[in-house]
């Protein structure tokens, strides 16, 4: 923990050079109000102005660095990283940080996790992909994100691939389903790529779409658990195929030689398609801003209109113009003032949230939370698959955002609402707080042991620091910021209260910071 020792010194230096936090909002906000050329901001702020909603102020650097790490790479900044950013005086440091984070390995881990939720990457019941197919599928998804593969190509491959579940990973799209009837497949495709619940469609519309998926065949091979997904021409006489119609009502005649999945995919990824681009643009927005322009982000329907059609149209156009470069869209959103607003609303107007007048508070996801605890304390978790079969080897130091398979998990992940990956609905992830979760964080041996065994505490105890220095270091590591003078007084008071020894006091301060809303929430 050499880095930590260095940090201790830097923290002190930084502390004296920083002005006291005396802005009305406390440490959450910044006084700077830079004017913005970002097209998102023009639309959002014009709209807010028109609705007479006062936007929040731009967040402080300390808030921004934490938010950017958590939102972009699902990872808490290390104390040293947060400190370096906060001390950086470059005027473009936020944009530079965004660029750096978009290239980190954890970016691919975190967004592969997100996509694996939607694509139901799970070896066992009820999806039953089988462990090494799940791993191959996850690897493929992660590689696509790492390489920033254009999203339309990503989608087309998932929809049209044929071959072995082990060797051609995207074919697992058609295997990761509880029900492989054409209508059920159509529902999954509609949910994933069109953001719409096809079970609410008129039956005829679903049947028309189902026809495109009525000629998918599944064949076993001599290799254990291998399965070939293919265009099964033997099924082309199927009456369903004759009923094929695109969801927008346009009829189509399927030729017996051509895989109808390709016909569908080409219709889907056409920039003029009314669902495809809008869906992904809205999803990306909702992932970063905590709320879709259309909300829920996978429930597009006529009676659920976008809160700001102009904004959604802008994001769509950006995607089409950049040939579906998702990182570019991320970058555009992340650099906007809208994204960088403080979570402290300027006014309590009911419509403010739907118009993005402040950054919404959201509890850390299960995986992000446990990884953050592990990072702070230098501990690790054991992850296991309920049914340990070959191909399910989990190294001891793996981070939970990098787990390849929804069947691999832990009681903590379940308790904190990790999605079961049964349906691909965004709402499967549950970030609502429960009393069980509070019990666990406040009083479980699991969390208590992590803190007590942490390198952070050991280091602070050995390095003979003042209680003030110890508190400052813990704030930087856990909350990515320095404490205010008031906070220092409170922690010093606790150290000096005499009710616990110095080590216990240090543990309790770390415990209190970990249990604070500022740690548990994105803000």
């Amino acid at each position, binding site marked *: 923990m050499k880095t930590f020792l260095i940090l201790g010194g830097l923290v002190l230096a930084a502390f004296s050079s920083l002005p006291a936090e005396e802005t009305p*909002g*406390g440490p959450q906000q910044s006084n700077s109000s830079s004017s913005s050329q970002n097209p998102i901001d023009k639309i959002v702020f014009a709209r807010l102005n028109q609705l007479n909603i006062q936007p929040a102020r731009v967040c402080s650097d300390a808030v921004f660095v934490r938010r950017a790490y958590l939102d972009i790479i699902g990872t808490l900044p290390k104390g040293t990283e947060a400190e370096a950013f906060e001390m950086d005086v470059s005027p473009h440091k936020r944009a530079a940080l965004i660029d750096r984070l978009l290239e980190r390995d954890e970016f691919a881990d975190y967004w592969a996790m997100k996509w694996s939720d939607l694509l139901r990457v799970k070896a*066992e*019941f*009820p999806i*039953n992909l*089988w462990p090494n197919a799940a791993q191959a599928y996850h690897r493929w998804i992660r590689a696509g994100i790492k390489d920033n593969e254009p999203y339309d190509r990503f989608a087309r491959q998932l929809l049209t691939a044929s071959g072995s579940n082990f060797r051609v990973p995207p074919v697992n799209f058609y295997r990761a389903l*509880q*029900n492989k*009837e054409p*209508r*059920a497949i159509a*529902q999954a495709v509609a949910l994933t790529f069109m953001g719409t619940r096809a*079970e*609410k469609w008129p039956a005829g519309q679903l049947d028309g779409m189902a026809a495109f998926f009525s000629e998918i065949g599944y064949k076993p091979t001599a290799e*254990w*658990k291998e399965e070939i997904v293919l265009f099964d021409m033997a099924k082309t006489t199927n009456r369903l195929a004759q009923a094929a119609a695109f969801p927008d009502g346009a009829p189509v005649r399927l030729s017996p030689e051509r895989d109808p999945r390709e016909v569908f995919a080409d219709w889907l990824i056409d920039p003029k398609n009314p669902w495809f681009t809008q869906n992904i643009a809205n999803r990306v927005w909702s992932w970063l801003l905590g709320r879709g322009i259309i909300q829920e982000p996978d429930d597009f329907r006529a009676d659920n209109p976008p809160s700001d059609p102009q904004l959604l149209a802008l994001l769509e156009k950006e995607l089409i113009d950049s040939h579906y470069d998702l990182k570019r869209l991320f970058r555009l959103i992340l650099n906007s003032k809208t994204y960088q607003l403080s*979570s*402290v609303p300027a006014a309590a107007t009911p419509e403010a949230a739907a118009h993005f007048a402040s950054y919404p*508070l959201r*509890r850390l996801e299960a995986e992000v939370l446990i990884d953050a605890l592990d990072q702070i304390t230098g501990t690790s978790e054991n992850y*296991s*698959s*309920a*049914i*340990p*079969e070959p191909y*399910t*080897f*989990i190294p001891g130091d793996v981070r939970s955002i990098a787990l390849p398979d929804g069947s691999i998990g832990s*009681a903590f992940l*379940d*308790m904190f609402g990790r999605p079961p990956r*049964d349906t691909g*609905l965004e*709402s499967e992830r*549950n970030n609502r*707080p*429960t*009393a*069980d*979760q*509070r*019990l*666990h964080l*406040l*009083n*479980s*041996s699991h969390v*208590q042991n992590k803190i007590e065994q942490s390198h952070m505490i050991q280091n602070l105890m050995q390095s003979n620091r003042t209680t003030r220095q110890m508190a400052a270091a813990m704030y930087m590591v856990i909350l990515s910021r320095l404490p205010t003078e008031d906070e220092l007084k*409170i*922690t010093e008071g*606790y150290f000096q209260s005499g009710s616990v020894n110095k080590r216990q006091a240090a543990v*309790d301060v770390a*415990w*209190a910071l970990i249990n*604070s*809303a*500022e740690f548990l*929430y994105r803000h």
Partner: protein
Amino acid sequence: MRYQLNADGEPFKPYSDALITRLRDTAITRREAVRRALLGAGGLLLGHHLSLRALEAAPSPQAKAKAVIQIWMWGGPPHLDTFDPKPEAGSDYCGPLNKPIATNVDGIRICELMPLLAKQADKYSIIRSMTHGVNGHETASYMVQTARASGGRDVYPCAGAVVSLFKGYNAGYHGLIPPYIVLTEPQGRFSEEGFLGSRYQPFATGGDPAKTPFAVEGVVSASITENRQKGRRELLHKLDCLPRVLPANSELAASAQCEKEAYDLILGDAGKVFDLTQEKDDLRDRYGRNTFGQSCLVARRLVERGVPYVTINYKGGWDTHKENFQTMRRRLPEMDKGMSTLLQDLTDHGLLDKTIVWWGGEFGRTPKVMWEAPWNGGRGHHGEVFSAVLAGGGFKGGHIVGSSDAKGEAVQTRPVYPCDLLGSMYELLGIDPNAKLPHPAGLDVRVAPCPAEGLKTGGRLTEIM
């Protein structure tokens, strides 16, 4: 878990439960498949018809039972070596356990390793004709506890989550102890709450009730004194600045409420339910000073305080592919002691009339013993017929429901499917089988499977209700 060839001591098998499910699913007839698709896609189409049918069958909900203690025999206990002995089938079937003992009810005999339960047969009834035909742990566990077949689009909630929905917080349950408790580890094979969501997931205690203190994860800390608990709570409140900056935030308000509930458990009296030192030593001894025995005692204390559903997840090594009989000799006396004392203790506290005790696993075990190596007297999975035991809460004791054939291989009379057992339990709990479950996509799904779902049924257990 590390790479290993054996799953929980099972022999390596060239297929998985998942494959078995898939093979069975592909065997579904075309008509069945279309019907399932219709149900999945447009429950509305059938909804009207279904609700009429279901309404006709609905009994007036009159609750006899207030709580359930589920003794979950994880792994699948052998029916021949527990509640359905077959000494006449010969040693290839019953092995060395060929001297079943009479019980205090004429005509009922059970395995010789359960002498204490034999004295209490008037308190429980044995179903010897449970069946579903599923032989994979996960799929069978799902089937037995949700009454639904696996493989549909939805993951259904299991009985504990359904009871928690209808008897928990929504139904005026105010206890600080969560309404659905698992002693001590969750099952982990599927999410018990299914599509109902995490609000209905069980609270797994962790810890070991045979140890003092029973360190219920989160509730009872073995290392933090009460004074320190109070001191650091105060520290937390002083340092927690976000709620002060955002006083109107609903997320934080919900979190604060959760924290309050958590502390009421940690520092208040409610958490004392887990303090077994409040019980007499003599009673604790009778339960058996082991995890299962003391879990039974905790279960009684929980239902006494109004908790509506307690699962004792009994990981006793019942998945006896190998050396079945040695395991039975080792584990059955422990089970006998804990379960029989539970029945007596519930009676002594006047709780048995209001508490259903449900004993059973996901399936039985193959009646024909595999004597050869590497099994050395093992038994495989057997979903074709198996046993379950029900007591209390309005179920009559001293009866046998159904029967298996002479060798215990198949149902002979009166098949009982998981939906029959769960449906009967719901009925006694006063849960309307036709009540709607809140479905995330708004589909019309009911507590008990409707006839149109195509699940087999042998009818509710009216003979013991």
